[in-house]
C-alpha cells in the first residue's frame, strides 16, 4: 500500500466507503469479500465508532515536516498520522509527530498576551489584549524605523521554514531590518559550509531506494534526523528487503547503530580521519572510479588530468593510513580497510554524515572528506549515492523592501571566530550583543526559539536576557513559558502548528519534489494568534502595508502562483489533497552533466578556471577588462557563471550558487580555504582541547532520542512519559576506574560548572566518553516537562490526565557545562568536543 499515489488513495477510500454502507460497526459486513486494508487516511472514534473528520496538513515537531492527516472529533483534535498520498512520508509519522496532539492541549500553554509587571525573571505578569500588545510593539518599532535605524530591531528564530520564514522575512524586509538571527550553528552549519565549498547548494539526500551499501558516520537517523521519516523507513526497508548492509560509526550504541549490520565504535572527533583512511585504501588499491573525477578539482591546477588528480589525492592522503587512523579513532585498521573496500566495490553506496561528524573542531573539513569519499567512488549525485536534495520551489507574494534596509553585524560571532559563517554563529548572538562593540538591538524578538536553553553556556545567555541594560525591550512569540520567555517584556501567544496555514517544502527522499501545505485542524485555542496573521496587522500599526492580508491569504496566493500547483487546481486542490508532485518528474539526478549553450552575448571562457561566464552580466566595463581580471579576479563574477569547460564540452557542472566564489568544479582543493589559512584539501586536524586532555578527563557528547526534539517537546506528555530523564552513558571500564556503578549519582564538571545526574553504565559506548542527551533539565516546561506548573497563568484548561503522571525525574541540562565554542571554519557550535571530569557524587 505504500506506493499509493494520491489518486488511487482517494478512490480506494471511496470504494471502502461504499462497502461500509452495508453496515457500520463491529461484526458487520463491512469486511465482506475483497475490501483491502487501507494505509490510513481515515480514522474512527474507538468509543463511538463514528468517523472522524480527516484534514490533510503537515507536521512541525521537527524540521522534517511530514505531510500528515489530522483527525478531528467534535471540534477537538484527536489523532495525527502520516498522509497516505505523500511520496515523501509514504503515510508514516514518528512518535514525536504522533504526540503533536499534546502541543495543542498541554495544560501549561499560554493562551493570551502577557505583559511583564515585575522585574525580569520575577514571573509577574498582567494579561493584556492583543490590541494593547500590538500597539505596545508598534510604539517600540515605529520610532526605530522613523529614525532610520530599523536594524536596532532584531528578530531571531529557531524553527522557521517555508512560508513561516517567508512571511517573516517579507515583514522584516518591508520594515527594514536585516538583523535577523537563526539557530543553524547549533544545528549542523558545519555540514552545509563543507558542502557549499564544494557543490554549491546544499542538503545532501541519501538515495536509499536505490543504494546497495550504506556507511554512516554519526547520524542517528533511525531515531532522529532532519529528514527522519522519509529517509529512515527507506533505509530499514532497503536493509531487510534487499539485504543492503549498513555500517554505523558512532561513539554510542544508538538505535541506528544497534540496527546496523555492524556498529563500529569510534572515538569522538575522528570521523574525518577514518574517511581519509578509507580514501587512502581505495586510492592505493585502485578501487576508485574515475567517472566523477572530471568534475573534481584536487590541486591548485584547474586543468589537471585524471592521472594527475589520482596522484594528487594519493599524495594528500598518504599519511592517513588505516594504522594511523586506528591509533586515534580506535577503529581497527582491518575494519577500516574492509568497509572501504565494500563501499568502493558496491554498485552504488551512500556515505552518510551528521552531527556526530560535523559538530566538532574543523567539522566542516570532515564533511569535505565525506564528499571526497563519495566522489572518488562515483557515489556523488548518482543513483543510489549521496545526492543533492530537492524540495518544492514555491512562488510567493512579496512586499517591496523598505528604502532603509540594513542590519547589525552581530550574527556571525566575534571577529575572526569563523572563516565562513555562511549560516551564521547563532550561539554567539547573545555574547556578541553583551560585548556591544558591534552594536546592540533595542528590541529583540524571538520566536520558536529558546536561546537560554538551547545554546552552549546557557546560563550566560540567561543572564544576558535578564539584564535590562543590555537589551531594553524583549518580545517573544511562544506557546509556552520557558527559560527565555521568563525574561521577556511581552509574551505573544503563538498558535501551534496544528492551528495555522503554511506551504511546505522539505526535501524528498526520492529526488522528486513534493509540494504540500499545512492547514489548521482546529480553531486556535484561546487568544492564540498565528504570527503570519500578526505581521500584516503590525505593519499597518507601524505605517506600511504587506502584499498579503493574513497567512491564509499568503498561502492562497502562493498556491495560485506556483507553477504545477496552480495547474493542478491551486489552493482548493491543496486544501483538499494536502500534497502535490509532478507525475512526470523523473527525479533530480545528473544535473551537472547537462550541456549548456555558451553562445550568449557576453559569455567568455576563463582560461585559468575553465569557467564560462558572462562579463556583461557581471557588470564589467569591457571584455578586455574581463579577460584581464579573470573570473576569480572579478568581484561578483560567480553570479554570472554559465558553465564549466570539461573535456571539450560546456557543462552546467556545480554552479557556485552559494557565497563561495569557485569554478564549476567540486573544489576539493579550495582557494577559499587556503586564503583563510585553512587546509585547502581535506585533512585531519586534531581537536586542541582533546590533545591537552589529562588522563582522568573524558569527552562529553550529546545526542537526541527518538521521542524528543531538542527543546520543544518535553511538555508533550506522551513523549515525556517514555523519556524524561537523561542519565550519563558511561562505559563499564570507564565507570569502574572511577568506582561508579550503574545508577550511582555522578558529578560531571569542568571549568564552566557542574551538573549531577545518574550513571547509565553500559557496554554501548566507547571508553573515555560520557554521553548525555540534551532535552531535559528544564527550568520551566510545565507539569510534564519540569514536574511543576509554570509560575504564570497561561489560561489553558487543566488536563485531568495529570493526576496519572507517574514520573518524578526531569533530567539535567548538559549545555550548562558546554562552552559556546565555534568550529573556526564554519562557526558551528562544537557540541561534541567538551572535556569534563566525572566522579561519584
Amino acid at each position: 500500500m505504500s506506493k499509493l499515489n494520491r489518486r488511487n488513495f482517494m478512490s480506494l477510500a471511496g470504494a471502502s466507503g461504499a462497502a461500509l454502507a452495508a453496515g457500520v460497526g463491529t461484526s458487520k459486513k463491512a469486511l465482506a469479500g475483497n475490501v483491502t486494508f487501507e494505509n490510513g487516511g481515515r480514522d474512527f472514534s474507538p468509543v463511538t465508532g463514528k468517523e472522524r473528520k480527516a484534514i490533510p496538513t503537515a507536521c512541525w515537531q521537527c524540521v522534517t515536516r511530514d505531510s500528515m492527516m489530522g483527525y478531528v472529533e467534535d471540534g477537538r483534535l484527536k489523532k495525527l498520522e502520516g498522509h497516505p498520498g505523500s511520496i515523501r512520508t509514504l503515510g508514516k509519522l514518528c512518535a514525536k509527530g504522533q504526540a503533536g496532539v499534546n502541543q495543542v492541549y498541554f495544560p501549561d500553554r499560554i493562551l493570551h498576551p502577557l505583559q511583564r509587571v515585575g522585574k525580569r525573571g520575577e514571573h509577574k505578569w498582567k494579561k493584556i489584549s492583543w490590541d494593547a500588545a500590538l500597539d505596545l510593539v508598534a510604539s517600540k518599532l515605529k520610532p526605530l524605523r522613523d529614525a532610520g535605524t530599523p536594524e536596532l530591531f532584531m528578530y531571531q528564530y529557531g524553527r522557521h521554514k517555508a512560508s513561516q520564514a517567508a512571511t517573516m522575512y517579507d515583514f522584516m524586509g518591508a520594515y527594514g531590518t536585516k538583523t535577523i538571527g537563526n539557530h543553524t550553528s547549533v544545528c549542523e552549519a558545519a555540514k552545509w559550509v563543507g558542502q557549499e565549498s564544494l557543490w554549491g547548494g546544499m542538503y545532501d539526500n541519501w538515495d536509499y531506494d536505490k543504494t546497495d551499501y550504506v556507511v554512516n558516520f554519526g547520524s542517528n537517523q533511525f531515531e532522529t534526523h532532519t529528514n527522519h521519516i522519509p529517509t529512515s523507513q527507506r533505509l530499514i526497508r532497503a536493509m531487510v528487503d534487499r539485504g543492503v548492509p549498513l555500517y554505523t560509526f558512532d561513539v554510542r550504541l544508538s538505535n541506528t547503530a544497534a540496527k546496523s549490520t555492524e556498529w563500529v565504535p569510534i572515538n569522538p572527533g575522528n570521523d574525518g580521519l577514518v574517511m581519509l583512511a578509507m580514501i587512502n585504501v581505495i586510492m592505493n588499491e585502485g578501487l576508485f572510479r574515475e567517472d566523477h573525477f572530471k568534475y573534481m578539482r584536487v590541486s591548485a591546477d584547474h586543468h589537471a588530468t585524471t592521472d594527475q588528480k589520482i596522484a594528487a589525492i594519493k599524495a594528500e592522503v598518504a599519511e592517513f593510513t588505516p594504522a594511523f587512523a586506528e591509533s586515534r579513532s580506535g577503529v581497527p585498521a582491518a575494519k577500516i580497510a574492509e568497509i572501504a573496500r565494500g563501499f568502493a566495490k558496491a554498485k552504488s553506496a551512500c556515505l552518510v554524515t551528521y552531527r556526530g561528524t560535523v559538530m566538532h573542531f574543523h567539522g566542516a573539513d570532515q564533511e569535505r572528506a565525506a564528499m571526497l569519499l563519495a566522489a572518488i567512488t562515483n557515489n556523488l549525485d548518482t543513483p543510489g549515492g549521496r545526492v543533492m536534495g530537492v524540495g518544492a520551489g514555491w512562488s510567493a507574494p512579496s512586499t517591496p523592501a523598505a528604502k532603509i534596509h540594513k542590519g547589525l553585524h552581530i550574527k556571525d560571532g566575534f571577529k575572526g571566530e569563523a572563516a565562513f559563517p555562511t549560516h551564521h554563529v547563532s550561539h554567539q548572538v547573545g555574547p556578541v550583543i553583551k560585548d556591544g562593540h558591534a552594536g546592540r538591538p533595542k528590541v529583540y524578538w524571538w520566536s520558536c526559539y529558546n536561546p537560554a536553553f538551547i545554546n552552549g553556556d546557557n546560563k550566560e545567555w540567561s543572564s544576558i536576557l535578564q539584564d535590562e541594560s543590555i537589551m531594553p525591550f524583549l518580545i517573544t512569540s511562544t506557546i509556552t513559558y520557558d527559560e527565555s520567555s521568563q525574561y521577556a517584556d511581552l509574551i505573544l501567544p503563538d498558535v501551534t502548528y496544528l492551528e495555522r496555514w503554511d506551504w511546505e517544502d522539505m526535501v524528498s527522499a526520492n529526488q522528486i519534489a513534493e509540494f504540500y501545505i499545512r492547514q489548521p485542524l482546529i480553531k486556535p485555542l484561546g487568544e492564540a494568534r498565528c504570527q503570519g496573521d500578526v505581521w500584516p496587522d503590525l505593519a499597518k500599526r507601524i505605517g506600511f502595508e504587506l502584499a498579503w492580508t493574513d497567512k491564509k491569504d499568503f498561502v492562497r496566493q502562493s498556491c495560485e502562483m506556483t507553477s504545477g500547483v496552480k495547474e493542478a487546481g491551486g489552493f482548493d486542490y491543496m486544501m483538499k489533497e494536502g500534497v502535490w508532485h509532478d507525475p512526470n518528474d523523473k527525479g533530480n539526478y545528473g544535473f551537472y552533466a547537462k550541456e549548456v549553450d555558451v553562445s550568449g552575448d557576453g559569455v567568455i571562457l576563463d582560461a585559468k578556471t575553465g569557467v564560462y561566464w558572462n562579463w556583461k552580466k557581471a557588470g564589467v566595463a569591457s571584455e578586455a577588462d574581463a579577460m584581464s581580471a579573470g573570473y576569480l579576479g572579478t568581484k561578483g563574477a560567480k553570479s554570472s557563471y554559465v558553465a564549466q569547460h570539461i573535456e571539450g564540452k560546456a557543462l552546467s557542472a556545480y554552479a557556485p550558487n552559494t557565497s563561495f566564489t569557485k569554478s564549476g568544479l567540486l573544489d576539493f582543493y579550495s582557494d577559499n580555504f587556503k586564503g583563510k589559512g585553512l587546509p585547502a584539501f581535506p585533512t585531519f586536524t586534531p581537536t586542541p582541547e582533546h590533545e591537552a586532555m589529562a588522563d582522568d578527563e573524558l569527552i562529553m557528547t550529546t545526542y537526541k532520542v527518538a521521542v524528543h526534539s531538542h527543546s520543544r517537546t518535553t511538555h508533550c506528555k506522551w513523549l515525556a512519559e517514555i523519556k524524561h530523564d537523561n542519565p550519563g552513558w558511561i562505559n563499564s571500564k570507564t565507570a569502574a576506574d572511577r568506582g561508579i556503578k550503574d545508577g550511582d549519582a555522578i558529578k560531571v564538571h569542568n571549568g564552566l560548572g557542574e551538573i549531577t545526574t545518574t550513571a547509565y553504565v553500559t557496554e554501548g559506548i566507547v571508553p573515555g566518553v560520557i554521553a548525555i542527551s540534551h532535552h531535559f533539565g528544564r527550568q520551566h516546561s510545565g507539569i510534564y516537562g519540569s514536574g511543576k506548573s509554570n509560575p504564570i497563568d497561561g489560561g489553558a484548561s487543566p488536563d485531568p490526565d495529570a493526576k496519572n503522571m507517574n514520573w518524578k525525574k526531569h533530567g539535567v541540562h548538559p549545555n550548562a557545562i558546554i562552552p559556546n565554542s565555534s568550529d573556526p571554519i564554519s562557526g558551528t557550535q562544537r557540541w561534541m568536543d567538551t572535556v569534563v571530569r566525572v566522579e561519584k557524587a
Partner: protein
Amino acid sequence: MNKIDNSKTGRREVLKGAGTVVAGAAALATGTEVAEAAGTAPRWAMVMDLRRCIGCRACTVACKAENDVSLGRFRTVVQEKTVGTFPNTKKGFLPIMCNHCEGNKEDGVPPCVKVCPEYPGKRMTFETPDGGKIRYRGGATYKRPDGLVLIDAEQCIGCGKCIDACPYGVRSFNPFVKAGKKPENQAADKCDMCKERVANGIDPSCVNTCQGRARIFGDLNDPTSEVAMLVKEHDLAKNVLLPEEGTDPHVFYIDPDNMLGKIYKKRTKGKLDHYVDLIP
C-alpha cells in the same frame, strides 16, 4: 496488503500450513461458542518482524493517541535491551501488546476470559463477511469469533481478575472509564486491535505508523494475506511469547537473530512494571 478472502478452501490451506492455528478452528466448534449457519470469520493476527523494528516508539505513541490511553499505563510498548560486551555489543527491540490469544486446546478460552466473572454473558451474533452468522457469548472480557479478545466496559465489574490472569500482563485499569456493572470500580482496558478502524477497512494505528513495516496485520484465515504467508514462510507458529503457557497467542515474531529470548522481560506476578515503555 491484507486482502480479505473468506473462501473455505483458503482457510483449510492456511490451517495446514500453521499447526497451532488449528486450535482456533477447534474452538469454533467447542466451548461456549456455537457455529450456526455456514460462515467463516476472519482470524485477525499480527506479525512483528523484529528485523524491521528500529525502536522508534511511533507505535507506542500512535496507540496512546488513537485510544487516548491515560498516563501511567500502555496498550502497547517496546521493550529494549543491550547485551554483549564492548565492542561486541548488541541492542534489540521488542514490541509487545495483547496477543489476542485463541486460548488453550481444551476449551479455546483465553485465560483472561476464563477468569472473567461476567463471562459468559449476553448472547451475541457475529456476522461473517460471507453472510453467515456465528453465535457467541459476550462478557466483560470475551473472545469474538474473529479472534479479537475484547473488553465490554459496560459489563465489567472492575474486579481485576483478568489483569492478574493475563500471563503477558498487558491489561490495566482505565482511570477514566467506570466499570459498568460496578461503577465504584474502574473498568479493565487493553489493546482491541483498533477494532473500529479494522471494521472500516483501515489498518490498526500502530501498524499504520510503523516505518519499517515491522507490524503486519491481517487475516490468518486468508492464505493470501501477508500475515498468513509470513507465518508459513518463517514457520512462526511457535515464535510467540510464552508458548509454554498454551495460550495460543496470535502475535507472531519474525526473529532470525533469536533476540526474543534475550530481550523479553516477562511480567512478575501481580506487577505490571514490565509493561512500561521507558527509554534508558
